[in-house]
């Protein structure tokens, strides 16, 4: 079907504001009488605060007040406390001081005397499972969403009997499908490998600054957030107010990568502090603090056993994943990981065991492809290893295992909504010239070796059940209300174009209402999990479909006949076959106001969320209101796939490499925004290169101090570290569960690039699988020199 807007490039309205600097982030806002708050954070990885003496600080001229753990209501452990008397990592927030200026606030912090009782700590989840090793918390060591918070230790025998494999004691969660033992018995090749996937920081360019003040009983809160409507209930809960009393402003977000998808405590602190001292409070978080408070991807230690048939088909898999939680409850990457394995490689039988363990390291949260991308970073080089041993082409072994439209995912064996990874692999291979380039794979030029590789990745790509809201004004303009948030991908606009497409609008006729809850936003999911496209396509579709039905009904009421006898185009609704018999959208909107009831939002669907009801009620009477809950049918689990091809030239003298070319292909359904897709493929690749080959997160096991608390220490890629040439493409085949065929793609674009790079490095050094991320120059050099690696086999958070 030819589309008017879909598949066309456009300039999102927020681009100009970002480029010119007009965009206002949380730190840019001011309010009369505003004070600055500074955080006092723990210098210990684990300690008990025995006493706080702020007397001298509070006497300082300009100091306005203090917020301590006694002033906040913390959630039940091990959820992230707002402020704490038992900090579990270096940097855990203990208290806030507010002053007329920021320097005074910082100076005042230095006058505060805290008596700490240092407690045992660790920065290695696997090692901490030993019965003689300390736990990260005093109230338990294992837990996650879906896993009871508990104390669980392994036995000495678990460690003593491990041999060269990872010690594996009792897991916290497990599942099995198929007959795993029988499947392994059929295998021609069995690989049994331990692995480490490092944690890595989110590096959000905008630190998580927040500013708050109170007016007429409402809290006006400026935050840095990927999401808008979705976080309001939880954030209001942290502040202790109903969501209707929260005015949430989050129009721009300087990067989140998953770490700002949900509500987080630092967003609530200025609001609580402002209520206490009755002054607007700005709490700036600086670059260094962002590394303490900004969270990181959950690291993995694990063991995976893979059984292959002679043709490379994966028959059996046995996976054990230990997840580093950080000190507090975080995410469930460990449970996502096996889903990526099941869907991308389709084993006939599989066992998964998982163990989320707390460590005395900062907060962890979802990061672009949580769990799924760690899994492909481990699996893809092992797939290459199997291909080498079975003497199969590395592309061919992926095609042998690749899922199709009816393939199942996860232990539930539910089908995917759509899958074109084979198309992506084949399209990418064609663009890249896989067959031709194989001829120069392994060629040496002095100390430099050329290597080519392929990688792939998967991520779920959507949800359902949220609401859509739009209104057609008497002016003829159409306001699309979107509460999805602004992660920086322009999805707030590209998904709104679904509604515009349904109503056959020109893009100039559309106003996007977003970024501030006072703009009457519907209940939408947050912008995370590669879901925005799929989920918001559906909400905007149902809202526009509702508006379209109302347009036709209004026309039928005016001109007679049934609504079905009417059509739309050119911002008019008219009788089919008689274009002159009809009215403009503006006239229809005016008519809707006159008719009232459901037409102008005075009567609302019963099944929409209370937030949408409030917003729709607020705009009722201003035009024709289209509002509906997404009750569209959905077949299978929305799924996004991506394939990547890379050529590198690795210098065996230095362990360094140049990424000569990168080709990324996305299975993202119908392409909604080509330039947005290109940006996503490239930026995902850049991030993947960083995770696979550069980024550091290091803690000293002696004192728990973090070594990577600056961009130059944590080492995300620079312009000079990325591919010299990028080429991108989309498969551009529709997802049948998405109204216009679109689906999300953001996250696999990291994983396919990271895995392709890891495979290329492995290929360049003779097929050695490091089974570890990142693979950095010293590891490459040690391997090439025949030296042992500096890190222990399963050591984490080290150099």
């Amino acid at each position, binding site marked *: 079907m030819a589309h008017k807007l879909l598949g066309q490039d456009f300039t999102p309205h927020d681009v100009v504001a970002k480029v010119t600097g007009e965009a206002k982030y949380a730190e840019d806002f001011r309010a009369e009488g505003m004070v600055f708050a*500074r955080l006092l*954070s723990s*210098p210990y990885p684990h300690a008990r605060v025995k006493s706080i003496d702020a007397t001298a600080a509070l006497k300082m001229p300009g100091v306005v007040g203090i917020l301590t753990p006694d002033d906040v209501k913390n959630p039940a452990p091990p959820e992230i406390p707002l402020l704490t008397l038992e900090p579990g990592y*270096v*940097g855990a927030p203990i208290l806030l001081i507010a002053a007329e200026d*920021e*320097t005074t606030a*910082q*100076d005042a912090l*230095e006058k505060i005397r805290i008596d700490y009782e240092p407690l045992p700590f660790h920065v290695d989840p696997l090692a901490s499972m030993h019965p003689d090793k300390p736990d990260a918390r005093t109230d338990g060591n294992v837990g996650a969403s879906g896993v009871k918070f508990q104390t669980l230790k392994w036995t000495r025998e678990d460690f003593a009997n491990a041999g060269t494999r990872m010690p594996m004691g009792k897991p916290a969660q497990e599942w099995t499908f198929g007959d795993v033992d029988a499947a392994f018995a059929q295998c021609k090749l069995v690989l049994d490998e331990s692995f480490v996937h490092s944690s890595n920081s989110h590096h959000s360019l905008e630190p998580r600054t927040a500013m708050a003040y109170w007016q007429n009983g409402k809290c006006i809160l400026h935050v840095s957030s990927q999401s808008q409507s979705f976080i309001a209930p939880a954030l209001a809960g942290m502040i202790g107010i109903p969501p209707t009393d929260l005015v949430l402003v989050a129009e721009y977000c300087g990067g989140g990568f998953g770490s700002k998808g949900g509500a987080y405590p630092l967003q609530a602190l200025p609001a609580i502090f402002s209520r206490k001292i009755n002054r607007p409070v700005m709490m700036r978080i*600086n*670059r*260094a*603090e962002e590394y*303490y408070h900004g969270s990181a991807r959950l690291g993995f230690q694990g063991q995976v056993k893979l059984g292959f048939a002679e043709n490379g088909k994966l028959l059996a898999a046995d996976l054990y994943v230990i997840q580093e939680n950080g000190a507090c409850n975080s995410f469930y990457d460990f449970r996502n990981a096996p889903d990526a394995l099941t869907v991308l490689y389709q084993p006939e039988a599989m066992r998964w065991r998982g163990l989320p363990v707390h460590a005395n390291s900062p907060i962890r949260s979802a990061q672009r492809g949580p769990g799924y991308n760690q899994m492909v970073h481990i699996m893809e080089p092992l797939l290459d290893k199997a291909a080498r041993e079975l003497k199969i082409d590395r592309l061919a072994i992926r095609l042998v295992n690749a899922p199709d439209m009816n393939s199942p995912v996860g232990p539930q064996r539910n089908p995917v909504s759509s899958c074109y990874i084979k198309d992506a692999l084949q399209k990418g291979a064609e663009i890249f010239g896989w067959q031709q380039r194989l001829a120069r794979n392994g060629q040496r030029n*002095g*100390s430099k070796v050329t290597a080519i590789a392929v990688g792939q990745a998967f991520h779920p790509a959507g949800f359902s059940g949220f609401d859509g809201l739009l209104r057609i004004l008497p002016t003829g303009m159409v306001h699309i209300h979107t509460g999805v948030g602004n992660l920086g991908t322009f999805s707030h606009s590209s998904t709104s174009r679904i509604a515009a497409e349904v109503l056959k609008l020109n893009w100039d006729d559309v106003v996007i209402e977003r970024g501030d809850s006072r703009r009457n936003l519907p209940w939408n999911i947050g912008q995370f999990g590669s879901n925005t496209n799929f989920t918001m396509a559906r909400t905007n579709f149902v809202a526009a479909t509702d508006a379209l039905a109302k347009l036709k009904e209004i026309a039928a009421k005016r001109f007679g006949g049934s609504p079905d006898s009417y059509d739309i185009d050119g911002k008019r609704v008219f009788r089919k076959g008689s274009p002159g018999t009809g009215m403009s959208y503006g006239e229809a909107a005016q008519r809707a106001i006159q008719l009232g009831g459901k037409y102008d939002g005075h009567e609302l669907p019963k099944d929409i969320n209370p937030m949408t009801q409030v917003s729709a009620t607020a705009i009722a009477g201003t035009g024709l209101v289209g509002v509906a809950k997404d009750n569209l049918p959905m077949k299978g689990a929305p799924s996004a796939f991506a394939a990547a091809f890379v050529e590198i030239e690795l*210098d065996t*003298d*230095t*362990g*360094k490499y140049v990424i000569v070319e990168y080709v990324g292909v996305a299975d993202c359904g119908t392409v909604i925004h080509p330039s947005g897709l290109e940006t996503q493929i490239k930026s995902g690749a850049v991030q993947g290169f960083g995770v696979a080959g*550069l980024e*550091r997160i*290091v*803690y*000293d*096991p*002696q*004192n728990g*101090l973090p*070594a990577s*608390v*600056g*961009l*130059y*220490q944590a*080492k995300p*890629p*620079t*312009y*000079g*570290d990325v591919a010299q040439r990028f080429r991108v493409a989309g498969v551009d085949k529709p997802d049948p569960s998405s109204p216009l065929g679109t689906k999300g793609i953001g996250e696999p674009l990291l994983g396919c690039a990271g895995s392709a790079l890891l495979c290329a490095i492995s290929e360049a050094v003779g097929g050695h699988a490091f089974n570890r991320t990142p693979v*950095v*120059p*010293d*590891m490459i*050099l*040690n391997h*090439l*020199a025949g*030296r042992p690696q*500096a*890190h222990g086999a399963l050591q984490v958070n*080290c*150099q």
Partner: protein
Amino acid sequence: MLRDMMPNFELYQPDSLDTALDLAHRLGENGWLVGGGQDSWDWLKNRTKRTPAVVDLSGIATLKGVRETDGGIEIGALTPLTDVENNALVRERYALLATAAGRVASPQIRNAGTLGGNLCQDTRCWYYRGGVDCYRAGGNTCYADTPEGQNREHAIFGASRCVAVTPSDTANALSALDASMVIHSRGGERIVPAAEFFVGPDVNIRHMTVIRPGEILTAIRIPGTWARAHFHFEKVADRAAWDFALLSVSAALRLEGETIRDARLVCGAVACVPYRLHAVEQALIGSARNEDAATRAAALAAEGAKPLNFNQFKIPLLQNLVRRAINGAGSAAT
């Protein structure tokens, strides 16, 4: 804990060297000299080190620029690294330095950072920068030199209680060029050869250069000795930009035909000071510049190295870079 919040201090912005010297003399240890600020502001904003007064030297025009001297050149200490990299005289005579300057950090930092600052910057040992009470910070331990220490970037030569390394890319290039440092104080000037300017922990565990309170590094003089020699500079870092060296090598060779008549090889990021490979130099003099010489040089380069747990890779890396410096493979300065 890093604070990233600039504290209050008295700020002096002299526009002449005499005024700056008066200030440096009067303030003594209470005066912190700032060139481009790329090292200083980190310390002060993080409040890891304190000072009651800052003397900002950036307004002293006479401390900037490149001048010809008798047979060589003199570079003002406040000359931005970008200008050093792009200066025609430097490029024509001392491409080694131009290349090294161009590999410092990032374009933005090279625009702000100065050659003098790059030479005088403090070590990047993350323990020390993080504010722990190590030897270098006046304490009585080294956190990096332990079995569990995270010491990937640290020294393999010349450790003495402290295992921190020089982070400067230009220091080893200038050492290879036999440069001297011009240091002024109110009492006059003194000229200190690079080999004596940088000091290791065995000499002074609190400071990396011989500059004392009241003194200002005003210029760097490079003699004609190595002008237009065969140069090679190579820096290996994790990232292509905005990163400190895991290891760098500066080489200057004087050739007669294919025979090496004189040689300088100086390494960065392996010791607290630019580390000169005397034995390698001696072995090379009189040899043909060929693969055999490169191999012999590589074999000698790491003699005496004492790697730590996480930096053993520096040994093969040093050997490889020295071999490339001699056989001309890899990235070259000329």
